[in-house]
């Protein structure tokens, strides 16, 4: 068990990298071998992360929480930076999600990518390592390294296998993210000079710069910029519609499903964890940006005629809930509002975390679905579809589930996130939360009006006669796990909420929140 404890994360982390390197040595023309090999290899982290998920759950029931599976090996001892990985209630589900979505994406891509196959699978596996790394890293330098490692493969995924405007989107994605990450690096350095360490756990204990609001704010916004661009929060979101729209299906799935979560995860791990005071002081900024993102993103969705772009903007809106929840917790921490329930801050964070997880599943599924349609029709233009519900009932059914989950229908995963976020936020930042509620309505409107009505209802466009067929076996296999998860979480969110709630409470307690 001790071995498992120490090494499981490392194995999960580097397994895809190993697989990627092996892929490099498989001859280019043996495409099937590359595909099968990659998928099978990606099963290993999936199984292990499931195991970790279950194991963490068991520990949870036994009463042990907090950081588990820690491993710390000296790396740059003179800087106090080390290879330090670990997982807690925040990261365990996200690690699982990463493994799941990657495997599904690989599986889906095996049938849909026929061009430069070797590079694709190599990059995808590399990307997986990068994403794992961010969720596991407990050291700022390590965090930054993996943060950037994920950037490059995604750049290529968009740039090589994307759609018409792919180069533009890829470069925009890369540069935007780079701005943020370099700013983040500067902030990390500033933190280092205050504390002399890069270790997140230590920093969380030290809570540096508590007395120096000016510098703390500077550091805060350095990190904030990096995270907010990744999330993405309005007004740093403009890279996202392009990147999502142009990326290949699997790329969009990962981009929306995981990469955006990296930013949100950072908010908790870095900002709330290390700089609780600044986080509290600027909580209202996060709340404000979150609410603007919610409403703005939702309204922009209504005006879209490009299906994929619509889903992309919906991500802006949905990630706004995350920010709202996190910001509300920040405001609660600041102590400037006195009336709220003691649980609200934790609940708001629960909501944000749930939204991260659920958005990963739901939007992942939606992007798969959009990709499936594109495979057949080669267009994203909403206005050219119609009446698909009769032609492709299976597809319609799955899409409806994902769509309803996306608009926060109770009984499906998305609802819980909204409920918790609003439960927390309404108690702390009422007016903002009330404005945010508009987004919920508009979400329903664009899902139904823009998507369902345009694509599934109405007259069938004879242009597609005989060209659109219903979902095939592998597509169903790709989507069913996600659909099942939507229902499972929707009906019984307890396992997930248990993790998140514990983590949220721990974070808040560490941050000095008085219960």
């Amino acid at each position, binding site marked *: 068990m001790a071995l498992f404890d120490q090494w499981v994360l490392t194995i999960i982390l580097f397994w895809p990298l190993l697989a990627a390197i092996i892929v490099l040595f498989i001859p280019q023309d043996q495409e099937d071998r590359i595909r099968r090999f990659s998928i099978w290899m990606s099963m290993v982290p999936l199984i292990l992360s499931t195991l970790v998920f279950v194991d963490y759950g068991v520990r949870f029931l036994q009463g042990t929480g907090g950081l588990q599976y820690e491993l710390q090996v000296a790396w740059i001892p003179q800087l106090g930076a080390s290879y330090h990985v670990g997982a807690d209630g925040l990261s365990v589900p996200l690690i699982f999600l990463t493994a799941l979505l990657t495997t599904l994406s690989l599986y889906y891509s095996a049938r849909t990518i026929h061009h430069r196959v070797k590079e694709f699978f190599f990059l995808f596996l590399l990307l997986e390592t990068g994403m794992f790394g961010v969720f596991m890293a407990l050291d700022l330098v390590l965090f930054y390294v993996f943060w950037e490692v994920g950037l490059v493969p995604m750049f290529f995924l968009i740039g090589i296998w994307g759609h018409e405007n792919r180069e533009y989107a890829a470069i925009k994605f890369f540069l935007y993210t780079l*701005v943020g990450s370099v700013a983040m690096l500067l902030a990390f350095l500033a933190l280092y000079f205050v504390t002399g360490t890069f270790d997140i756990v230590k920093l969380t204990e030290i809570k540096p710069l508590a007395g120096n609001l000016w510098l703390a704010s500077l550091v805060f916004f350095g990190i904030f910029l990096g995270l907010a661009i990744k999330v993405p929060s309005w007004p740093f979101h403009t890279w996202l519609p392009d990147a999502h729209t142009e990326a290949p299906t699997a790329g969009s799935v990962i981009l929306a499903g995981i990469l955006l979560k990296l930013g949100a995860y950072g908010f908790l791990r870095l900002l709330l964890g290390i700089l609780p005071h600044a986080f509290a002081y600027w909580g209202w900024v996060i709340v404000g940006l979150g609410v603007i993102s919610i409403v703005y993103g939702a309204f922009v969705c209504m005006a879209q005629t490009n299906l994929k772009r619509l889903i992309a903007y919906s991500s802006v809106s949905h990630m706004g809930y995350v920010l709202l929840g996190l910001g509300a917790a920040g405001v609660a921490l600041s102590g400037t509002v006195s009336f709220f329930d003691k649980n609200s*801050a934790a609940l708001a964070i*629960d909501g944000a975390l749930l939204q991260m997880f659920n958005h990963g599943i739901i939007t992942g599924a939606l992007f798969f679905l959009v990709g499936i349609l594109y495979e057949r029709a080669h267009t994203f233009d909403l206005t050219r579809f119609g009446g698909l519900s009769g032609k492709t009932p299976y597809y319609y059914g799955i899409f409806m589930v994902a769509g309803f989950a996306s608009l926060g229908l109770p009984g499906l995963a998305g609802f819980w996130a*909204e409920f918790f976020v609003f439960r927390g936020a309404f108690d702390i930042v009422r007016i903002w939360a009330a404005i945010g509620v508009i987004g919920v309505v508009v979400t329903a409107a664009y899902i*139904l009006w823009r998507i369902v009505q345009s694509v599934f209802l109405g007259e069938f466009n004879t242009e597609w006669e005989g060209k659109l067929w219903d979902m095939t076996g592998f597509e169903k296999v790709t989507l069913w796990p996600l659909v099942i998860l939507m229902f499972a979480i929707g009906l019984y969110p307890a396992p997930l*909420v248990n993790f998140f709630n514990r983590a*949220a409470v721990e974070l808040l307690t560490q941050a000095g929140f008085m219960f």
Partner: protein
Amino acid sequence: MDGLLFLIPALPFLAFVLIVLFTNQDQKVSAGLTIGATAVSWLLGWYFAFRAFFDPHGVAEEPIRLSIPWFPGGYSIFYTGFQVDVLTAVMLFMVPFLCFLIFVYSVGYMEGDPRFSRFFAYLALFATGMLGFILADNLLLAFIFWELMGVCSYLLIGFWSFRKPGETHIDHAQVKRARAASIKAFITTRVGDTIMLAGMVLLYAMTGSLRWSEILAPETLEKLADKIVSMPVFGVAPWATVLAILIFWGAIGKSAQFPLHVWLPDAMEGPTPVSALIHAATMVSAGVYLIIRTFPLFHVVAEGSNSAMWFVAFIGTFTALFAATIGIAQFDIKRVLAYSTISQLGYMFAALGIGAYIAAAFHLLMHAFFKALLFLGSGSVIHAMHHGHHVSHEHGHGHEELPIEFNPNDMRLMGGLLNKMPRTAWTFIAGGLSLSGFPLITAGFWSKDEILADAWHGGHMIVFWTLAIAAFVTAFYTGRQIFMVFFGQPRSEAAKHAHESPNSMTVPLVILAVFAIAAGWVGIPETFPGLGAVVRGWFQSLMGAQLEALHLEHETLPFNAAPLLISMTMAVGGLFVAWLIYGRKPLGYEDPLARPLGGLWQAWHNKYWVDELYQATVVAFAKWLAHFLYNFDDRWVIDPIVDGVGRYGRRFAGAVRRFIDEQIIDRIVNGTAWVSNVLGEFLRQIQTGQAQNYLLAILITVTVLIVLGIGVG
């Protein structure tokens, strides 16, 4: 046995899952599954309901419970489960039973539909929603089922929003309408639901719980009533009021009260059993049920402008009259009923608003029976009209010249159906009388009278008179409907060829008719002369137990003849006037009132143009905003910069292509893109290739720096 409580909603859900996953292809099995599951739920439901009826006080004090921990929330654990108290029992008596009848009826009505199985799957899911909703022991779980109903209504209203190959009984226009109606229903109710969600989370935050037993406990309510919140625009109010009003918005949406009533009439685009289901047993009742359930929250601040009660009363009363008047001027048989539903629901809210808890519950129950009856009856009529239309076509009579387009729902094309389909007609008339509150014998009379009596007794004169007028209008349009449909001469070939519907449809009608008349007798007030002694206000004492458990005072009203007489007069008078106008002489295709009333009629006929108003304001604004923001995002901010780069590029560098095509990267520097380009180009050009130019740069740099240094130092 208490453990089986969960089966009541679970069984229909199981049926839904089984149909979707396995029996989709077999229509009979699918229908059988749904009906069988509902039947079992019905029996189980009645078991629990009667347990409550026999021991009202015991159950009210100690509800039958089933509860499990759900999830942690901060530092507390959220429990969830089902419970049966007296109020639930009353609903449990009505809901599964009505569902069962409607489902049986659907077998006949939906026969031959290519998506027959799916229809039953949706029905089962709908039943799940409603049953779960009434059984839930906390607001959150209730909300989940509540939304589930929303989805089902969306699915069912839009059931005909697309055609499968070979489906001929629905036309293109209908598809379009169904599609719009379903989305409208979902989104409109979603508006209310979202506000309610806000209320719910606030309530949760304020009280730390959402279980009925905890949030409605007197000490919690006291706290909420004492705490004052100050809001922008709305001013200062106790929390209880704010929360109540927020939650009430959910009911406004679901129960189609003004101003969120617009979806309900359109919802008639769904198959008729769906309308019956929505209007009687489930969806709209849910809204009223929710307010009855949370009544203590409303009631805790009962007096003054700070009370949520007056808001409820106002919305209810206004809607009651508002919708009733619209009902006068509709031609679609189902739309008339739809507006009557809105109006009747307004009654119930008005009752709640004036504190008439029992009356509201009573009317809810009665209304469910007779409205189900009316809808199913109208469905039977439509079915017959449709059939008649086909028959007339087949027999070559099809080419009749009608001044208006054929529509099986259009009452102007009916007439004289009493003889063609007597069972439908008589049951429908029974329901109609109940709706119009025909004195003494009908259920509707007793429930409506109870409300009016309460209003009179409580001194709410505005409410009373408005409701009384609404009662008159109700009786009038019901009469109008009955006379237009069943009496006089058939006004189309279809009506001529119509004939009675199959048994699976008429049997439920008959059963319902019995209830529509007789069910009301359980609520004859104890103080009512003569009859009261027989029944002894059974229903009132039953609900009284519930009120006592909630620590609310419950008094038996003294008998007062004035409201009774006024109510009777209104009902009978309305029917009489209807007869005068519609029953006495043969009707044409134009409404006799249209000309004399002129603009007023137009306002009624066009539903006060509320839809158009929304279209022109809310919807238009939302669309405008969406496009504005989209343009802002994609066109106005980023593209102009790119364009600017291009323009200046042409002017300055003369290398347009390169500028636009290759300078993608420059976009990242957005605002500085232009500057950097020009600067970059400038710098590139001072790289002249002349070594001496470069050296001059050294000279200049050195000179400037040294001179500056001397100047400073």
